[in-house]
């Protein structure tokens, strides 16, 4: 019996050992997220035909847990050759020293030149003058809204600035007083709204070389109070708990405005059929005062090359392939992810799509966020927390922002120490 057990044990170890054996012969291991992974597999055969000596092995990583999984993979020295990274994640992997500076490759390349991409998006990939990623697809946040509800409230145009947006929401609220509905949806558990409006009002989010929180500054405070006002006046539900399904809420007229990204388009199309099909559309973000469109987030995913890769040249070839306008268009048509290469936007697939105009306009005016590894923790766990406290009036705006700064400073303590150490070294 024991022999059997031991046998099983040995077999199992062998089994697991097999699992971690990597193939080495020009096979590129590529991690992609969610539906991107499913759809890229349809394009890969084209590349493999053009480059018969390279094979691409795609592995799907779920979005919801992607970041934890990627860092776990790093911690376990189990990195792929290349990966799709949300561009706010790049700083973390740079600080882990996990991804390769691509400047050399770019200098020699004909396919990839900085000016072929949207400026704000390209910048998200630069840290200390080094380029760590090539934009694969882009996203930014725009306004999704119900045209019919706007018209009923007497607005034929989407709002162009903060005041217009606020007045519009009040009007809609007055119009729909009888039933329970809200003009806009600004969930406190999505930090993006708060950052977008903060960027619009010209706030510097962090100070002292990104080592201290600067949320109590005049600019950010103005943006934060502006959004909290919508909560206090019951112009928006609090968060995802009330609205389990945004698309349904929009279709029911429970909400009329939702600020979000391009991945929603197919869902909205799906939920608003028949009569509702022409009742919604997209518009660029309203500006702070007079500028239009207002700033929005430079989002999207970049392709990065891991330092541990043994196939850097091949990976670069594949990145160049994915940056070709025709390949970008093909990827757009299968995944709805917006092309990062400007030239692709001249195609009628995009120019004739009514929802795309807003995105194209918006992409001219996007801005990156602070590029430090702690950023995600600050916005996810702290900004959202204090936004919820302020929205539910458990804290005043001043208190919330003061606490946010305090927490941000605490999170950034190590960064300050490292910066000081670096400075001292340089002084010597």
């Amino acid at each position, binding site marked *: 019996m024991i022999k059997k057990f031991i046998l099983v044990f040995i077999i199992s170890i062998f089994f697991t050992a097999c699992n971690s054996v990597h193939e080495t012969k020009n096979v590129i291991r590529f991690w992609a997220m969610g539906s991107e992974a499913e759809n890229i597999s349809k394009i890969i055969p084209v590349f493999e035909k053009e480059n018969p000596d390279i094979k691409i092995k795609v592995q799907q990583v779920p979005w919801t847990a992607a970041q*934890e999984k990627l860092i*776990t993979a790093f911690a376990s020295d189990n990195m792929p050759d290349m990966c799709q990274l949300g561009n706010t994640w790049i700083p*973390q992997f740079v*600080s882990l020293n996990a991804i390769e500076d691509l400047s050399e490759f770019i200098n020699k390349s004909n396919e990839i030149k900085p000016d072929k991409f949207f400026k704000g998006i390209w910048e998200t990939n630069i840290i200390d003058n080094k380029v760590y990623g090539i934009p694969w697809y882009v996203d930014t946040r725009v306004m999704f809204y119900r045209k019919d509800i706007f018209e009923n409230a007497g607005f034929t145009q989407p709002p162009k600035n903060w005041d217009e947006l606020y007045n519009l929401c009040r009007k809609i609220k007055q119009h729909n007083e009888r039933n329970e509905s809200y003009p806009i949806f600004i969930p406190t*558990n999505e930090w993006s709204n708060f950052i977008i409006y903060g960027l619009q009002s010209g706030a510097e989010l962090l100070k002292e070389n990104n080592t201290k929180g600067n949320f109590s500054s005049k600019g950010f405070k103005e943006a934060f109070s502006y959004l909290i006002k919508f909560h206090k006046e019951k112009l928006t539900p609090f968060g995802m708990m009330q609205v*389990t399904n945004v698309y349904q809420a929009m279709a029911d007229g429970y909400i009329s405005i939702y600020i979000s990204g391009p991945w929603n388009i197919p869902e909205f199309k799906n939920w608003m059929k028949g009569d509702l099909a022409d009742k919604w559309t997209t518009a660029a973000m309203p500006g702070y005062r007079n500028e239009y469109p207002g700033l929005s987030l430079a989002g999207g995913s970049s392709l990065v090359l891991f330092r541990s890769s043994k196939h850097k040249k091949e990976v670069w070839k594949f990145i160049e392939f994915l940056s070709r306008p025709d390949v970008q268009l093909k990827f757009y048509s299968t995944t709805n992810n917006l092309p990062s290469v400007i030239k692709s936007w001249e195609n009628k697939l995009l120019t004739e799509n009514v929802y795309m105009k807003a995105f194209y306009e918006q992409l001219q005016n996007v801005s990156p966020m602070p590029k430090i590894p702690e950023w995600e923790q600050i916005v996810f766990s702290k900004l959202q927390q204090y936004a919820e406290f302020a929205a*539910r009036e458990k804290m005043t705006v001043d208190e919330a922002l003061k606490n946010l700064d305090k927490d941000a400073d605490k999170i950034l303590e190590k960064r300050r*120490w*490292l910066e000081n150490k670096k400075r001292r070294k340089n002084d010597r």
Partner: protein
Amino acid sequence: MIGNKSGIAFFFLAPALLAIAIFFFIPVIAAFLISFTDFDIYTLGNFSTIRFIGLKNYLELFKDDLFWTALGNTFLFVILAGPLSIFVSLYAAIILNSKIVKLKALFRLSYFMPVVTTLVAVAIVWRFIYHPNFGIVNYFLSLFGISSVDWLGNPDLALPSIVLMAVWKNFGYNMIIFIAGLQNIPEELYEAANIEGANNWQKFKSITIPMLMPTTIFISIITMIGYFQLFAEPYVMTQGGPLNRTLSIVQYMYQEGFRWWNMGYSASIAFVLFFIIFIGTMIQFRVQKYLSSK
């Protein structure tokens, strides 16, 4: 006993004890050491950035509002769910143990079903049962004219809702132990009480309760230890919200450790949890000693 055969005993013990020593005791000590450092994402990239920071993590914890929130939530959960679960299971055990009940095994089985099932799966089911618009709980309330309640979205109701689910999930386990305890009470005690003309309540108070005391203490300890480690229910049902009102200690530890990679800080949270469980257990042991000495 079979004579002194240390060699063979060692051989028998070695696999299990080695595994426990290497993969349990060493990590416990290591965690203790890590809790005095600022092990974080920078350290993961470059080990030389690790700093020994003494008690700073623990001191920070005392100043950390979120930690106190998580601690408060966890205590509230234990205080609500613990006694409720013990009460329900004792009640179920007593009626199930009654001689006149038919189909005992069947009832016992159905009460026990939630215990063995996967927590994540049933938490998902309960999430939909609590749904504000389509949930069954609200449907039943609507039959009595009560308008829809947002169980998991309302900051004051979210934790109690999770408590109810946890009691549903666990009471069967304690019930089985109580039944065993009840069956160990000698029948003669009740017969003697009958002769003295005691009523049911008197019998319960002066025989059942004292005789069940050791069982109850045991159950309180395991229930408390289990409930202090609350994690999957809020992870699946509320992600710690709304307003962090369902954030538990273990969830906070997980977030700090494996989402933000503040491993030093996370380790100190783990030790605080350990310390609390330790104190709780000691208190209950004392209570038991005190009661049995009387």
